[in-house]
Every structure is written in C-alpha cells, then in structure tokens.
C-alpha cells in the first residue's frame, strides 16, 4: 500500500478518518500494518501490501 491512499481513504462503515500504523515497509511501500478508524475504532489490517477494508461483518462471512 502506498501512503498516498491516506489522502482519500476512510472507514467503510462510518466514513470517518483512519489512522495508519506501519509494521513493515518495502521500498517505501507499506507491506504490513493496519488502519484504525478514529471514530468506531475498527482495525483494518494491511497484509502483503493490500489493505483489507471490508466492513467487519463482511470480513467474517467472507473469511
């Protein structure tokens, strides 16, 4: 994931801003980490460079 996504990304549920926490980078790209909703506190994981922004209820059924 590229940090520029932060300019436009938001929580899929309540559309509030997200806070980025980086675990690892590769050549600038965020490979692992998470995005946390500043409103509802939901944590969205970033794995293999791809943020998973499915709403929590869909994450369950499709996991």
């Amino acid at each position: 994931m590229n940090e520029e996504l932060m300019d436009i990304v938001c929580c899929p549920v309540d559309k509030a801003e997200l806070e980025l926490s980086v675990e690892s980078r590769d050549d600038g790209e965020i490979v692992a980490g998470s995005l946390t909703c500043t409103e509802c506190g939901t944590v969205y994981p970033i794995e293999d460079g791809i943020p998973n922004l499915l709403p929590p209820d869909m994450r369950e059924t499709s996991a």
Partner: protein
Amino acid sequence: MSIREAFDAWAQEGKDRGMEERHWHTAKHALARMPIEEGDTVLDLGTGSGYALRALRERSIARGYGLDAAPEMVANARSYTEDDAIAFLRSDFQALPFAENSIDHAFSMEAIYYAEDPVEVLSELRRVLSPGGTVYCAVDYYEENVHSHEWQEYIEIPMTRWSREEYREAFREAGLYVAEQDNIPDREVEIPPADAFPTESFETREAMIERYHTYGTLLTVGVAP
C-alpha cells in the same frame, strides 16, 4: 457462497486473465470514451486482473485504485503491475472506503450485478465522485441479452438482471444523471462458420452474432451532480 469463495477460485484457475482477454474486446472502447484528464484519480470497481487501470495509466491518470472483495483477485492484480500509481484494496462495492469527492471517474466491468443492492453501489459512487465525475458501468449480463440469462446457473452469488431501462432508472434513483447508454459490439470474438453450429453455447450462428454484435456489452454512463 461468499464473493471471496466464488472469485478466489476463479483467480486461482487463472480466470482473471481469461476475463481480461474477453472483456477487453469491449472494455477498451468504453475506457476510450471516458473524459479522463492527466492527473485524474480513477476507481475500478471489481477490478479483477486490474487491466482497466493499467490501460488508463497510459493516459496519465495520477492514481488508479482497484477495488475487489476477493483476496486472490487483488493479489493477482497486484502481481501484474509494478506501477506505484496503481493500488489495489479489498473492499465491498456497497461500503466504499473513500471520502466524499475523492474520485474523478469510476469504471466497472461485469461486476456491479454481483452486489446485493446495486442501487446502493451507485449511491456510494455518487458520494465518492467529484461533481461532474463519471461512472462507466459496463455489463454483458442484462435483461435484453437473453444469451446471458443462463450465467446465473454457474455461480452461487445471486445476480441482478436489469434491463437497459432499469439501469437508467437505478442510476437516477442513486442521484446520478444518465449521460449515455450504448451497446458496444464485440467484433473480435471469432464467430465460426455456420456448419460449426450448434456449438456448446449457441444453437445457431445467428444467435452467436446477436449475442456479440447486437447485444455486446451494455454501457451506462452516469454523471455525479
């Protein structure tokens, strides 16, 4: 069955690339019509292999975001490009993780009808698009294209089968203006000589021609107010 289960299997079998090849016949014409300017941010809904964004980058869009619920689809899509300006994310059509007015144009090929509530998808698009931003929504699966009706048998996800008119109505219900509706013919698919019919998919050559040349891909273009 979940979107993930259905489409991860497709991605693993390489169907993402197969779709790219077939859909490109008409998708490229839809993409060519988009009023893209240098520096635009474009969203591809149900991105599959991500080909639409790769193509639009050649027209100097600043960023392309490919959204798909199936993790194997986005993983594949990511592996097909090294371009930093193209990013993929897992997300659902009906709950877009983008701020208001953050997207210039949106494209979607053969995807919207898998949503539980496609009108909600269009409303979400309206929310994230800047005023004047377009939605280029292309589908081969729709009411008038009788040859597509049986597709529902091959997938456990319920599909919405709207008519041309229902597409226009849905766009308007979601608060989008309808700027265009068109059938884009697929003139690249090879149509065998008459004596090759019936084939597995078509009784007659005429039926196959109707499917590809007359019905082709239904494009509906919406504009956000």
